[in-house]
């Protein structure tokens, strides 16, 4: 396996609503920052790959306009996935393994404010039996939470503790949307929203974008003092219907962890893409994380959730932990689909 490292990462400040700012206007300063931090120019990038979803802002071909941010003239090697940008990173990582590139720029972007996100995400569901009823993304997650609670996997207090920790950690993350000192007991006093979920159990809706730069071994050492080396990356899909899989655990996460021979006890940090508090607990249990691991030092998706970039953000946040020396070994996780249907894991190391 060819050594590849995360050498730069920038994100837009998490905002509920960026108003009229277009995707491409949002992207340009963030790309500029990611490049500047690595002392690179646009022309030094071998490959660009992005993740986005047309339905968020309601126009076909969102990624086509985004190409305008790249200065891709006369032409650039570029690709796009209609998935979270973590999968764009995966596509780039494969290209590194093919020996075709040395520097790749990955970006994800999404403006969810123009639409009604929980309804938009309903269109991910099977279009015959399920979507016509318009079950929203929050309701589906709430069913998952109810089933896990009923099974005794964790308690509502555990969920509130996840939220309190997320907001506490986010105090140190300038790009976080929700942050502050909260007490789990106080959070539990709030009324339920889509029961058993309370509003704070759900990620916020965020407009924004993120940019991450990967580099091959020699380049990485030149561009970054302490590169965050990608030591393994794997992703898995589950079946789609809520009734055909066990919602209280994450079998695809376990399968990916098994392939990576991941030891949940030996991680300094885990950045988990959990849009709902209980999903973080399901992931922690599936990964067999222990108290040795700091979970979501960035605050995670509960502190800011740019759909289509939130998975890539976990790679960026994990890399920051490595760069700073706060961690030697970190896990980045990304998810896609309703109720954690598809999951990706990657191990990042400082040495």
């Amino acid at each position, binding site marked *: 396996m060819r050594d590849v490292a995360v050498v730069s990462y920038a994100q837009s400040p998490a905002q509920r609503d960026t108003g*009229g700012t277009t995707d491409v206007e949002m992207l340009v300063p963030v790309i500029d920052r990611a490049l500047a931090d690595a002392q690179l120019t646009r022309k030094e990038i071998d490959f660009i790959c992005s993740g986005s979803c047309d339905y968020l802002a309601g126009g076909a071909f969102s990624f086509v306009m985004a190409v305008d941010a790249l200065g891709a003239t006369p032409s650039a090697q570029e690709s796009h996935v209609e998935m979270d940008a973590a999968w764009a990173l995966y596509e780039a990582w494969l290209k590194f393994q093919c020996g075709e590139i040395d520097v790749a720029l990955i970006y994800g972007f999404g403006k969810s404010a123009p639409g009604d996100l*929980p309804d938009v995400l309903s269109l991910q569901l099977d279009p*015959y039996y399920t979507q*016509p*009823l*318009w079950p929203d993304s929050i309701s589906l997650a709430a*069913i998952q939470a109810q089933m896990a609670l009923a099974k005794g996997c964790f308690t509502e207090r555990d969920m509130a503790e996840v939220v309190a920790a997320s907001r506490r950690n986010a105090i140190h993350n300038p790009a976080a949307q929700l942050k502050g000192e909260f007490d789990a007991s106080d959070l539990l006093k709030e009324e*339920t929203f889509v029961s058993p979920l309370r509003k704070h159990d759900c990620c916020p809706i965020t407009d924004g974008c993120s940019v991450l730069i990967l580099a091959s071994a020699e380049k990485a050492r030149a561009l970054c003092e302490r590169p965050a080396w990608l030591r393994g990356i794997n992703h898995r899909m589950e079946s789609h219907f*809520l009734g055909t899989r066990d919602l209280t655990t994450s079998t695809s996460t376990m399968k990916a962890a098994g392939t990576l021979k991941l030891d949940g006890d030996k991680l300094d940090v885990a950045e988990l893409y959990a849009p709902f508090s209980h999903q973080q607990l399901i992931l922690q249990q599936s990964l067999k994380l222990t108290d040795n691991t700091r979970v979501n030092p960035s605050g995670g998706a509960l502190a800011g959730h740019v759909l289509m970039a939130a998975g890539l953000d976990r790679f960026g946040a994990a890399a920051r932990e490595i760069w700073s020396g706060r961690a030697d070994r970190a896990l980045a996780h990304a998810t896609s689909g309703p109720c954690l249907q598809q999951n990706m894991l990657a191990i990042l190391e400082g040495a």
Partner: protein
Amino acid sequence: MTATEQRLEAEFELGFTYSRSLGPVIGTCFAAFAQKRFLGMRRSDGSVLFPPLEYDPDTAEALSEWVELGSSGVVEGFCWVKQPREKHGELAPFAWALIKLDGADTPFLHKLRVGEEQSVHVGLRVKPVWVAEPLGDITDIAAFVPAAEELTS
């Protein structure tokens, strides 16, 4: 040109009425709804899927063994929607429920109309409320209600 020029805004609707081909399996299931029947699909391990799928979700094997299911079932999982969204088409609070029909091994998602949250629980027996003129679609079932209640549409 001044900095105070008001920001132009407008709502727009993105939409289309799609025509969805169903294929033999979904088409048969929907046709059975028009007769107020539930048909499940047996997998090679003997278990029965509802809704019936064309292909086994784990092995991708093509499926074709139909099973007639009962007309009621039990709640396996649920959530309570205090404030229905416009798209839900419900006027009062309701539950989304994973309902396992009698004779099926997998639950499926539908709406459950019960007066209050406390009345919903795992194991609650429920039955469908059919619309007045079922056409052969998932929306022929207006919702489920507790089986103890009178059938009303």
